[in-house]
């Protein structure tokens, strides 16, 4: 598979939390290359691999949803008032191009305050002040837009220098791509245990898709493939990994220490670059749900370092996605 192309096409698909179908349909069409036993249940994409019923049952997850906005009100003049769907940085909203997922997709722009009205340029708007201009009257808007429609930042994806890519929803479409690439690497191999791939909904609003899918899947071991912070000059080295230096393996009180160590050891043995990401409690990823599913599971986070998280200009290095996929594949080849 062409990993870069896969990431870029996943990134262009729209899928705000709770409205992931476009991204999910694209992802399942890609997953079908590797298994016929796959389907969408309650929005989650699920695919089965390996020796059915054979322990341990390994779950590999990446979330399919992305942050966005939701329509809460249409004003008398036809502007849309909104609320956030996931962790939105209000500072970056003004003058962004968006698509309202109405009966038909409607292009819009987030209103910004013109300079003659703004005496204080350091002010950040409250979410209640954010409104979207779709160039329609209220009557026109109501014909195509309903309250509850999701709003996505107009998708884009570009190649930067080297192997770096920028796009709107690399969190976590690059994780989805890493999972697909891992299954691509092991497609000729006979796996010794049961493996289930989960591309889950609603991570950004509280890991809800992961919770209900894990209940059905009942994994013994769960790998949460997500993104984490790559260092930028305005951030702290204590919180960030480094772009281009490989998969970030999570160590945290809520993760299984032996599993984390096993991934570190596999990375070293296979000469794959890796970084250790230490968290001091829960992880803010789907791993938090998997570890306490039913009677419990051993969980680890495998994260692709990403810059500018939750802005429409996220940046990753394709090599980090490839190395994350290789690490997952190496694990699958030896887990029994």
């Amino acid at each position, binding site marked *: 598979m062409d990993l870069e192309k896969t990431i870029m096409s996943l990134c262009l698909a729209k899928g705000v939390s709770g409205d992931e179908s476009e991204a999910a349909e694209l992802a399942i069409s890609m997953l079908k290359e590797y298994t016929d036993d796959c389907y969408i249940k309650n929005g989650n994409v699920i695919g089965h691999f390996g020796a059915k019923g054979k322990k341990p049952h390994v779950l590999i997850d990446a979330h399919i949803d992305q942050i966005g906005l939701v329509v809460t009100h249409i*004003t008398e*003049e036809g*502007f849309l008032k909104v609320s956030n769907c996931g*962790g*939105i*940085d*209000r*500072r*970056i909203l*003004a*003058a*962004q*191009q968006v698509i309202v997922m109405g009966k038909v997709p409607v*292009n819009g*722009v987030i*209103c*910004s*305050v*013109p*300079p*003659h*009205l*703004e005496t204080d*340029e*350091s*002010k*950040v708007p409250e979410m209640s002040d954010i*409104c979207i*201009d*779709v*160039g*329609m009257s209220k009557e*026109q808007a109501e014909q195509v837009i309903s309250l509850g429609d999701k709003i996505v930042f*107009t998708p*884009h994806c*570009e*190649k*930067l*220098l*080297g192997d770096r890519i*920028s796009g709107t929803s690399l969190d976590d479409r690059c994780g989805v791509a890493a999972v697909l690439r891992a299954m691509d690497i092991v497609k000729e191999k006979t796996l010794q245990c049961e493996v289930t791939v989960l591309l889950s909904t609603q991570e950004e609003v509280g890991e809800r898709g992961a919770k209900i899918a894990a209940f059905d899947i009942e994994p013994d071991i769960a790998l949460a493939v997500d993104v984490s*912070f790559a260092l*930028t*000059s*305005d*951030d*702290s080295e204590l*919180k*960030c990994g480094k772009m*281009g230096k490989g998969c970030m393996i999570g160590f945290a009180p809520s993760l299984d220490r032996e599993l984390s160590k096993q991934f570190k050891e596999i990375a070293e043995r296979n000469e794959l670059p890796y970084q250790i990401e230490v968290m001091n409690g829960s992880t*803010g990823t789907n791993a938090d749900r998997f570890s306490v599913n039913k009677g419990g599971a051993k969980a680890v986070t495998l994260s692709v370092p990403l*810059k*500018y*998280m*939750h*802005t*429409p*200009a*996220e*940046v990753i290095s394709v090599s980090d996605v490839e190395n994350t996929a290789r690490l997952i594949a190496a694990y699958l080849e030896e887990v029994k």
Partner: protein
Amino acid sequence: MDKELLKELCLINGTSGDEDKVREYIISKIKDFCEYKVDPLGNIIAEKKGADRAKNKVMISAHMDEVGMIVTSVKADGTLTLSAVGGIDPRVAIGRPVVVGESGLCGVIGSKAVHNMTDEEKKTAPKFSTIYADIGAADKAEAEKYVQLGDRVYFKSGFEITENGFVSGKAIDDRFGCAAMIEMIRSELPYDCTFTFVVQEEVGLRGSRTAAFTVDPDLAIVLESTTAADIPLAEGEKRCCELGKGAVVSYMDRSTIYDKELYRLSAEIASEKGIGRQTKTMVAGGNDSGAIHISKGGVRTIAISAPCRYLHSPVCAARLSDLKDCEKLAAAMLEKMCQL
């Protein structure tokens, strides 16, 4: 209004001092319909023959440049520090894709992840002194292979005109004026007149100053875009002007007190011909009129502007009906002013 022409013009990148591609495009469209020259600053001065000789020399002007950013240094980690070219609110600069330099490198202006911000940081808007562009360079040495100090940085925005005539995209200020003038030059005009496509409006009305000196007109029309604030965040007179209410003709802004007779004439013509016309409810902003009306011994000047929301941001919004009203009013005013 030729929608394709407007779209193509808006999508060209050309900030102040870097208008070359806009100029080349305009020349390709007008060269068979007028005599033109390019002055030392880069202004296009085009003489259009009409059916008759005009009693007064009338100059009609629009600016080619748009707001943008400029690379001021390369940091150790390969990111680029930026300054604004023209009036950009730094709050509309972060979290979006950009195009860097003459070769059109893709980049982004990012922002530290919201997860890692303090409550205070979340409530504080960025400043140009703290933002930077990322082209994916691993370090300073790699970035310097592709970028030179002084390279321009442009927002990468889509451009759209919907079926109900809603126009959105970058640089409508003032490629709308350029598009309208190209169409006038390509049409039959009743009288001779001079068209100037000028540079560097956004950094202090600089191109229009030399163009007006060279042309030495009796009267002038500036075709522009002006701030409309008819959005939920503003009420009453703070809205300044509104989309869908027609061409904006000001009596006064921060750079010009407009010629009273021309101001009244615009009202008469608009009502006589049924052209939408409004005025601003605030004294705000400014445009090339500021340089033109005090050129040499003085030039009687009027500005006809398209109301435009989110001016100087990566996505301006306008209405096609207003653009058409501006064109109609400009054509009618031009005809009258030639014979005043």
